[in-house]
């Protein structure tokens, strides 16, 4: 058996991951045709590359079908219950930065903080007869954050894409989404609440606690950790 490492299957996230490992003497490459999702690892024995959608890597880690995986720290925290019992964070890779934030219409001149959002939610529910809608795909992170900070009278509505457009389309009153520069938010006439940075995400190397850690995998992991100069749990 070999140590399986899950890496995003395309785009900048894949390239940057390859660069990060390459700089540490572990060369990753994608095989053959442009559209084929299989790859190879050189510079270390018994390590197998598995190319996956970044969004599926948390689930594969939790199931133990891969031993290691590179994905956004936001996705792991959102998709896995008690994430740090299921996976361990081995290294923050220093790219793929994005903040999960809450944004409201810029024309809401009376709203700058969560305090304001909470008060508006109360008035909104009384006026419109339903809870203020926050569009997001990060249900767990947003809900836990709002519970922790004591915001009430809201509801989360699912939005898997084009979330910034939901306010204009009248399907939500506010959004909780990731942003790196805030440009898309501004273009959609939204502003970020000052005290509502829910999570600062970046690409991170995770270890699956539930994977099959036999002698071969443990040995391969030790060799890899030495090369990458990281500690393992």
């Amino acid at each position, binding site marked *: 058996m070999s140590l399986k490492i899950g890496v995003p299957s395309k785009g900048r996230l894949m390239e940057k991951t390859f660069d990060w490992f390459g700089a540490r003497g572990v060369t990753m490459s994608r095989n053959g045709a442009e559209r084929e999702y299989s790859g190879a690892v050189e510079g270390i024995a018994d390590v197998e590359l598995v190319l996956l959608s970044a969004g599926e890597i948390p689930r594969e880690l939790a199931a133990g079908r891969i031993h290691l995986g590179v994905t956004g720290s936001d996705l792991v925290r959102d998709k896995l*219950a008690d994430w740090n*019992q299921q996976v361990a964070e081995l290294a923050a890779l220093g790219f793929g930065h994005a903040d999960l934030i809450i944004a409201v219409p810029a024309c809401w001149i009376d709203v700058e903080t969560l305090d304001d959002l909470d008060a508006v939610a109360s008035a909104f529910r009384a006026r419109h007869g339903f809870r203020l809608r926050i569009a997001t795909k990060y249900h767990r992170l947003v809900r836990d954050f709002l519970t922790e900070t004591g915001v009430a009278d809201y*509801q989360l509505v699912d939005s898997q894409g084009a979330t910034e457009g939901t306010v204009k389309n009248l399907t939500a009153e506010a959004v909780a989404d990731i942003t790196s520069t805030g440009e898309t938010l501004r273009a959609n006439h939204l502003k970020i609440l000052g005290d509502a940075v829910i999570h600062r995400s970046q690409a991170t190397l995770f270890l699956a606690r539930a994977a099959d850690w036999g002698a071969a995998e443990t040995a391969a992991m030790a060799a890899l950790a030495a090369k990458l100069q990281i500690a393992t749990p």
Partner: protein
Amino acid sequence: MTVTPAARAEAEALFAAFRATGATAVEADILQPAETLLDLYGEDIRARAYITQDPLRGEMVLRPDFTVPVVQAHMAGGADPARYCYIGPVFRKQDHIGPRASEYLQVGFEVFDRDAPQADAEVFALFAGLLAPLGLQALTGDIGILLAAIEGLSTTPRRKAALRRHVWRPRRFRALLDRFAGRAALPPARARLLDHLRSAAPEALMAEAGPQIGLRSGAEVAERSAALLEDADTPPIAAPEAALLYDLLGLAAPADAALAHLRGIAPLMPAITPAVDRFESRLAALRARGIDTASLAFEASHGRTTLEYYDGFVFTFHRADQGGAIDAALPPVASGGRYDALTAILGQGRSIPAVGGIIRPAVVADLKGA
């Protein structure tokens, strides 16, 4: 398997005991319409509900609790007074790895009766009697006293409403009270916001900020902007008055001693007197049913985090160690309380005082097996 034969047997025995009091057995569908039901619950149960799509009936939820369907059935044409009991599984997603089941049996008892102190005592004494062999620790509270104290504050209706709304969220409640009492400084972000709002008319500021988007209208924004400026000029709640509320929030004592304490502060906080009178009548009714109120644990803040929609008497029964200390990590064996406001919401103009509670038979079976 989540529901074991031992839990089922325990549930049936408890259900039989409830029926033996003369209560009417009621059924509730497992699949409930999601929208009306979930709107009434706090975020915690909402987030943990199993929601599913029905092609004809729209969004449905696997029953997370019996109280709301039982109240709905009662309001649709129950006797007055009425006593109900029920048995069946409830469903709640568990967000943490651990022993808590996401499907478990509840056995419950609900009383709709206008004699509130007697009804409170009846439910509590019934539960205490059934659970007596298990050596549990009971804990009681009364959200009604807190709500009365908030109502009695000398401050604006808006500030009272904000505090009342957050009674069930202690951290935000505390932050609001600190601010309204002048104990916490105005946060810099709020100070900047107020300066900005003072700088021009809301309409001009909105036009400058960007186009009107979304369902919340410019009028609503302007209205709250005016309210913020008005609130900024509201004097803080007087220090002695705030101190009494802080004292009340921290009150934890055996019930009789708590009553004596409340009687002591009531002259300074006259608004709580009717609620304290109800507390006293309840304790008398409990004593008449054999409950030792000199040792019964009471906390004024009990029920503020877990039992949203309760607005009066609340109680829980917990597993305790030999010193009587409660293990807060474990769910209570039984819990209940008064929910008068819920019947008013569901009754569309009609309401009836109501109190009830549930027992988790799986925990009872565990305790008996141990």
